[in-house]
């Protein structure tokens, strides 16, 4: 167990290092000059040089990389050119929106998908199965930002029940914050739930045909007891795996949905920094998002150890 943990931690560190190098190389080596892109084509050579110096672009690459990563590890991401504040504070503020949003979306998608997938599998070809099939096919095919638009159209424009966007912060109370994040979370959750429903259904069907389910029934457990005590726990591992893999899509979706609902989240920060050509912020937010994806997948790996005792004993 400990050895498995150490091995996974080492691999996590290596992946994170590689991720940071990729970001650095793309942002600094690809045939493109961030300073030139930032100033536009009509920039004077001396202004360009000044900006390059300011951005540290005139120093050797390895020095700049070490400087950047060293700062990132200690929490110093530099100062934003457009916002004039430390990038660290910017990211922290925006996380207070994006993390709850992602959390709510994951929760909502699980609340929808797990019961629907389990029900569909336990009554194969019944009405629930058909509903689950149609729901997951539509969910997978529908862009989340469009769902966001439709939700605004129905619940804000037509019915006036919910705000059409914006976020006033958590100072006005939890309930108010959750209410403002609810529609965006639904928009993010529905496509996720589509994928998750499908995977849950397939996983439950797989486990239902296992011999140990018959053993459980022969003991005297009824269908329901066998389903929830034996089938579902064994079907969770693949569901959790997909949840981890989908996290990457969830983050990508957050960038879009935050823009639809004008939420001041991490994705919108990256997008705004990009449009304002504040590449230091882009570079750091991308690092942060990629690291988040890697860490979440690492945690899913650990959860797997917890869910399946067979993996634990690979000493």
């Amino acid at each position: 167990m400990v050895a498995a943990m150490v091995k996974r931690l080492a691999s996590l560190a290596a992946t994170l290092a590689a991720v940071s190098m990729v970001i650095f190389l793309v942002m600094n080596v690809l045939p493109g000059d961030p300073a030139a892109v930032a100033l536009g084509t009509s920039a004077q050579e001396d202004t360009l040089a000044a900006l390059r110096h300011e951005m540290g672009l005139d120093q050797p690459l390895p020095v700049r990389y070490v400087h950047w990563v060293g700062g990132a590890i200690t929490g110093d991401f530099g100062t934003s050119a457009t916002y004039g504040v430390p990038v660290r504070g910017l990211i922290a503020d925006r996380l207070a929106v994006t993390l709850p949003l992602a959390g709510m979306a994951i929760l909502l998608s699980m609340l929808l998908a797990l019961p629907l997938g389990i029900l569909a599998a336990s009554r194969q070809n019944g009405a629930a199965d058909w509903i689950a099939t149609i729901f997951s096919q539509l969910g997978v095919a529908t862009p989340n930002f469009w769902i966001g638009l439709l939700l605004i159209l129905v619940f804000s424009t037509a019915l006036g029940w919910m705000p059409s966007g914006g976020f006033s912060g958590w100072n006005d109370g939890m309930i108010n914050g959750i209410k403002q994040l609810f529609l965006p979370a639904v928009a993010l959750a529905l496509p996720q739930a589509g994928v998750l429903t499908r995977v849950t259904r397939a996983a439950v069907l797989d486990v239902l045909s296992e011999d140990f389910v018959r053993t459980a029934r022969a003991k005297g457990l009824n269908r329901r007891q066998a389903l929830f005590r034996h089938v579902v726990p064994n079907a969770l591992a693949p569901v959790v795996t997909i949840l981890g893999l989908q996290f990457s899509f969830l983050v990508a979706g957050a960038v879009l949905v935050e823009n639809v609902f004008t939420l001041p989240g991490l994705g919108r920060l990256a997008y705004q920094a990009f449009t304002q050509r504040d590449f230091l912020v882009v570079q750091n937010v991308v690092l942060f998002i990629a690291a988040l994806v890697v860490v979440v997948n690492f945690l899913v790996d650990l959860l797997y150890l917890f869910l399946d005792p067979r993996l634990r004993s690979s000493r």
Partner: protein
Amino acid sequence: MPRHGKLLLGGAITALFLLTALIAPFWTPAAPTRIAIAERLKPPLVAGLLGTDQLGRDVLSQLMAGATNSLSIAIASVLLGAAVGTAIGLLAATRRGVVDELLMRAMDVVFAFPPIVSAMMLAAALGTGRMTAIAAIATFMVPVFSRLTRSAARRILTHDYVLAARAAGKGSRRIALEHVLPNIAGDIVVQATIQLGLAILTEAGLSFLGLGLAPPAPSWGRMLADSVTYIGAAPWLAIAPGVTIAFSVLGLNLLGDALSDLVDPRRRQGR
């Protein structure tokens, strides 16, 4: 859903989508980029089948031209991603050992970048446009195809006829090309069909953010982005492109599912 039902529905939607993308460059009901301020924000059927946008452009014509752009970017990125990914997967499966380990770790690294995020990064370095969009979407597909190819290839490499070929002195490159690739082609085609749907969704997201094609080239994602301002006055501008995207992706997914059942009938019906 019955297997042939999926195949028929998915095939029909995909055929309609393909046909539209092929016809649009030559014929649309109106010129998709023609601006007519006098005709602006007309509802469906009042002006054109699906109405007009804030500049008086015909929505149906824009959707048709958008199909061409969307599909060409999606196909280019899936081809690129599948080619690179399959090559990496084959290399990892035949070389094994350190090469395998390094390549697969590299795929983990690539997988850490959601396509929208890598597009922003690439656009910061290279500027926006068709190539950036294709590169960003293709990058995300490389790990998908390399993992698929690697696991399928490793399965095939254990078969007797491959061992016989190896014993006959064939090198690993020839074995990969002559024995492995033909046997996993079906899996790759199925995956490519499904990834095509994902590519269309991603392209729509990129152009929604302005990271895709530059205006005035019609694109589904930007039509949705433009519709936000007029969502109260002209809801059809938000509805038509979304339905088109969802419908196209649904068709490709259904087709992919049906093909997957055909390639491997033993696989549990995915639905």
